[in-house]
């Protein structure tokens, strides 16, 4: 805890660690609109990297490319030593990249537990005939997946009383928790969080900050974070990448990025 609170050692460690997920000069064009232009991002192993920038800067577009929902127009995305630029989203999830969404996308008519079980889909084996004939290994797999889902829900702090409630009926905060548990159920090595503190009060944001560090340390995760709350960004990340109008305008340690005049300009406008 105390070590993680001190920004210097992890930053140094991060500089040494090899990148687990890397975007190499990716560009995404929608017709004439260039949403992301020539952006490179490195995610060193076991680091927490933040992606910040004003609205419409291309942060979520970059996320969608990293998870395979969009194909980059140009550039390459590499996971470990595997090129995943043209891989399907479900395959990338299978390789160990999981995500949450900015505007929580739970399966509303499924229970919290079922939602998390969906997250484990890529790690299960039962196919059509396994599902129909349900041999003992399928039954075991199903039982273990459910147990794991309950453990994960407890881990993210969902009250046990709402485990079997439909996701649409949960409170906003609980929905965020379920979404995080669902992403963790995929047993990822890289976790992408799209504005996880949106709609949270300062106390909840602080709790989540602590929780992200705990996640990184306990589950050996590498975390990429889109975040607007500067307190969270400065408190948790070893590196920060700043996007503006689809371009990377700054990158580095939080303190340095915060002092960068281009970043200040992007957020506050030019000082004449």
């Amino acid at each position, binding site marked *: 805890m105390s070590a993680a609170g001190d920004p210097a050692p992890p930053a140094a460690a991060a500089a040494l660690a090899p990148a687990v997920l890397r975007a190499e000069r990716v560009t995404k064009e*929608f*017709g004439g*609109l260039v*949403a992301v232009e020539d952006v490179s991002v490195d995610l060193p192993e076991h680091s927490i990297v933040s992606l910040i920038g004003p609205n419409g800067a291309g942060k979520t577009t970059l996320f*969608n490319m990293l*998870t*395979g*929902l*969009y*194909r980059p127009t140009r550039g390459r995305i590499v996971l470990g030593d595997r090129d995943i630029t043209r891989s*399907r*989203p*479900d*395959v990338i*999830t*299978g390789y160990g990249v*999981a*995500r949450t*969404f900015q*505007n929580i*996308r*739970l*399966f*509303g*008519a*499924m229970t919290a537990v*079922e939602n998390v*079980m*969906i*997250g484990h*889909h*890529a*790690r*299960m084996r*039962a*196919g*059509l005939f*396994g*599902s*129909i*004939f*349900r041999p003992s290994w*399928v039954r075991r*797999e*199903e039982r273990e997946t459910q147990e794991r889902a309950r453990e994960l829900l407890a881990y993210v702090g969902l009250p046990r009383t709402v485990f079997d409630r*439909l996701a*649409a*009926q949960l409170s906003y905060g609980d929905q965020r928790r379920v979404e995080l548990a*669902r*992403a963790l159920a*995929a047993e990822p090595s890289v976790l992408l969080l799209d504005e996880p503190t949106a709609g949270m009060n300062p106390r909840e944001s602080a709790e989540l900050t602590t929780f992200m560090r705990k996640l990184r340390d306990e589950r050996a995760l590498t975390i990429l974070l889109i975040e607007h709350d500067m307190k969270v960004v400065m408190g948790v990340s070893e590196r920060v990448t700043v996007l503006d109008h689809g371009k990377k305008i700054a990158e580095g340690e939080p303190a340095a990025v915060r002092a960068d005049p281009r970043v200040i300009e992007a957020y506050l406008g030019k000082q004449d």
Partner: protein
Amino acid sequence: MSGFLDALRARRAYLVHRLPRWWNRALAGALIVVGIVLPFFFPSDSGFMNATIIAVTYAVMSLGLNIVVGFAGLLDLGYVAFYAIGAYCLGWFGSGFFFKLRVHVLVSPVASTLPGVHLNFLLILIAAAALCAAAGMVIGLPTLRLRGDYIAIVTLAFGEIIATVAINGQSVSVGGGMTLTAGNLGISAVDAPYFPGIGSFGLLDLRPWYWLIFGILLLVLFVNLRLRDSRLGRAWVALREDEVAAVSMGIPLVKTKLLAYSVGAAFGGMAGAFFGTYYTEVNASQFAFGFSIFILAMVIIGGLGSIWGAAVGGLALGYINNYIIPDVLNNLPSHFGLHFQLTQVEFGIFGLLLVLMMLLRPQGLIPERRRQLELTAQIAAEDAQLAEAPAGEVTVILPPGEGAA
């Protein structure tokens, strides 16, 4: 009044919760026994038995379509195509239609002397299921990038294509003077099911026919129940609810959707093969577009996504269509001095029933738990989805403009 009903409902929910696990099994066992002994209470050649056989076959189709529309949420308006393909399997592999060939596998002594391809009915069932599963994939592929209404249009066209091929197939030569189908003339003199030790099914004793289709119904029910509570069933619901989230959680879109089409189609094919032999004819005029809608109506009246709903919906429309309107109430108008029979206005009756159903019980006779919630949450969710759908090319979303153009 409504307070009283709520109290009753709560009481019922409580009781259901308290019932021991064996209760479900006991109930299922009792229903199966009732199903098996049912024919002994009715004359074996009665109109009621005939209607029951047809109604059970409808229930099989309804359960098949329920996998596609109810579980996976893919609105399929061309389901009749699988009825057609299944029926033609029976026509091709269980009659003298391909008269230049002589293939006999486990068929009755009479059939084994006849020209043509004659396979045992169980083999034909398997062939029909396999061919329809493949056809289901064919129809599934072009719809993968589509959503909602656009899927409906493509599947509707597929149903029409198959129906047109069935009609014009009599001009399509497959060699040796044989044609692909017999069009509106129909392939007649098809084999009745034959099982070694039991013999051939007769046209006057309907009981064996009933037991056969009842067995198929049990199989379809079993598969439905198993799939609903499985990794695959969960994946279908997830795709139905939110494709982007589902693929991001590791669900393969193509494979999962195609499996839904295939499994649903396979059961349509089995029902089609049964109808082929039961009606003793495979005629292109049987595969009209209206029948796709009729099966869809069974699923919706029963309760979209609900297994017991689909079964009950199929039975209900089967009995109404083949027993209650023609046999029971047909002369009702004449009691009021009106000069028409109910069979002449049966489409009007079905329309009225559907409208009443949508007004009084839109969730269906036996609604599924999830759907009930969706009905209330749907409008809000759709608005939200419209608002956030990106203008660009998410790999799984088709912007509405593109499909309409």
